[in-house]
């Protein structure tokens, strides 16, 4: 992360923490909570799906385990915050199991395998009414007592900040380089001594833990959850689309993606009423067609066209510049 990026990020998070001082509408804060929640989930997904390039479409499993962990463990008398962390532990364990199996597969087969696992988790939750409440759902304890929505908003910003700092640190570390190497070419990564299965698994464990915290926050805000909501394929897809739209494999991408997508979704809901999903779908298609590297990825590439960026962190595909071409031709001669 460059100096300028650091200032931008620090300023952004400071402003975000200050928002409840100005904004008092519960409705607005709830939307902003959703923006930050999905920014955090997107950052979490980005470690596996963006940096390591493993397209997971089953993150709802970890989200759901986090949500149900909080709900069910506190039902048996464990304090809510302890339940939350135990739930995160359960999500990490399930990620270990899912990862050990699905990381044996590459490309689309991996994606299909993650969908299958998330569906298994959802169906199990649906069909164990004695434990989970089944389709009827279950109650979730409130994590914060006073001025609840403000606390949720702040915890959403905190979770995003945590995921952001973690990502920024990973990006510059050996682990981050290994993740990117796996995305670029797994055989090459192995040839320089990267234990690709282990590195991929670690990224998934970190990702699942963050996702599960998000799931618990979400569940506690709504106080009531059903499997078809917190473990649905829609949830998995949304967690993946946010960073893809913003720029997968970039630090700022998931945050930008969430701001654009979640606010757009809310605005469309108000303006277009029943047609909002259609408009939303069109927006996603447009971005995929015209900005395949996502919003952040495209901006970074445009910047790189003008100056020789000390690349690295922002590893989005780059078109060939004319002077590069000239250098290369000169070398060939």
């Amino acid at each position, binding site marked *: 992360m460059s100096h300028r990026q650091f200032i931008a990020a620090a300023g952004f998070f400071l402003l975000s923490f200050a928002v409840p001082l100005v904004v008092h509408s519960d409705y607005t804060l709830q939307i902003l909570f959703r923006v930050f929640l999905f920014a955090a989930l997107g950052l979490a997904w980005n470690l596996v799906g963006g940096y390591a390039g493993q397209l997971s479409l089953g993150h709802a499993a970890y989200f759901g385990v986090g949500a149900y962990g909080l709900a069910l463990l506190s039902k048996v008398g464990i304090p809510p915050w302890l339940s939350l962390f135990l739930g995160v532990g359960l999500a990490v364990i399930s990620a270990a199991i899912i990862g050990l199996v699905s990381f044996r597969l590459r490309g689309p087969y991996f994606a299909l395998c993650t969908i299958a696992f998330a569906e298994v988790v959802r169906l199990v939750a649906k069909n164990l009414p004695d434990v989970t409440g089944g389709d009827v759902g279950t109650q979730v304890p409130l994590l914060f007592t006073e001025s609840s929505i403000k606390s949720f908003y702040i915890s959403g910003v905190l979770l995003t900040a945590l995921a952001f700092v973690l990502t920024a640190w990973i990006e*510059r570390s050996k682990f981050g380089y290994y993740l*990117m*190497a796996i995305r670029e070419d797994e055989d*090459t990564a192995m*040839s*320089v001594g990267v*234990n690709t299965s282990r590195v991929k698994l670690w990224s998934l464990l970190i990702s699942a833990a963050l996702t599960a915290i998000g799931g618990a926050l979400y569940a506690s805000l709504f106080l009531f959850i059903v499997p078809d909501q917190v473990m649905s394929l829609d949830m998995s897809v949304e967690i993946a689309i946010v960073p893809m739209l913003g720029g997968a494999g970039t630090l700022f991408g998931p945050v930008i993606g969430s701001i654009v997508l979640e606010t757009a979704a809310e605005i469309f809901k108000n303006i277009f009423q029943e047609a909002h999903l259609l408009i939303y779908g069109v927006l996603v298609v447009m971005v995929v067609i015209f900005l395949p590297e996502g919003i952040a990825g495209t901006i970074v590439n445009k910047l790189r066209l003008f100056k020789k960026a000390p690349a690295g962190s922002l590893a989005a*595909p780059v078109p060939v510049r004319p002077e590069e071409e000239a250098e290369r031709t000169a070398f060939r001669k």
Partner: protein
Amino acid sequence: MVLLEAKHVSKRFGGLKAVNDVSFTVSRGEITFIVGPNGAGKTTLFNLITGVVHPDSGSIYFQDQDITKLAPDQAAKLGIGRTFQIVKPLGNLTVLENVMLGAFLRTSKPAQAEEEARGILTFLQMEKFLHLPARGMGLPMLKRLEIARALATQPKLILLDEVVAGLPTVEAIKLAMLLKRLPEWGISAIGGIEHVMQVVMKIADRVIVIDRGVLIAEGKPQEVVDRPEVIEAYLGPKYKEIGL
């Protein structure tokens, strides 16, 4: 002193015996070239040594340790580096980052990895390209990048699969002269090569000739190219007339 030893190694892909009962040794500080026509089994032999595939029978020893069943990343950790015949750059990373990735095998500090990567890139005369993305570089530079990344892992043995294939002759010889210096750093090399015999004659200490998976000759470069069975299987009778 023996660095690598292959004992009666065989590998079959369905009905094809890609490598058939091949035994050879590589000594420390030596550059060995495996030559043979297209499909002779050179790449399979490299994949067997680096653990990408495992032999059906036979065994491979590296520094007296059995590496027959090792995974590729474990082989790299032991000190076996490799380049790929079909170059595999990490396209969206810069040249420097590609090489740093190799250096991370021996250090966890990005600053140190970068320093080592810069040193290696300077040796391979690639300083100009440090911050360019590997995607879209020309083949000569990509071939060098493969070598740089492998060297950054500080290997004791480096396997160079068709490292000069597809390069213009001048560039191939330039690269070969750089590679000739590897033993100075205590790095042994095995090159695999199909047809650029000039390079082999210039830098190889020893040559192994394989044809259809079978080892047909080994020895010093000049001795080997004079053998009738090598001329028959590989070089062709006209080779003697052209002379090298």
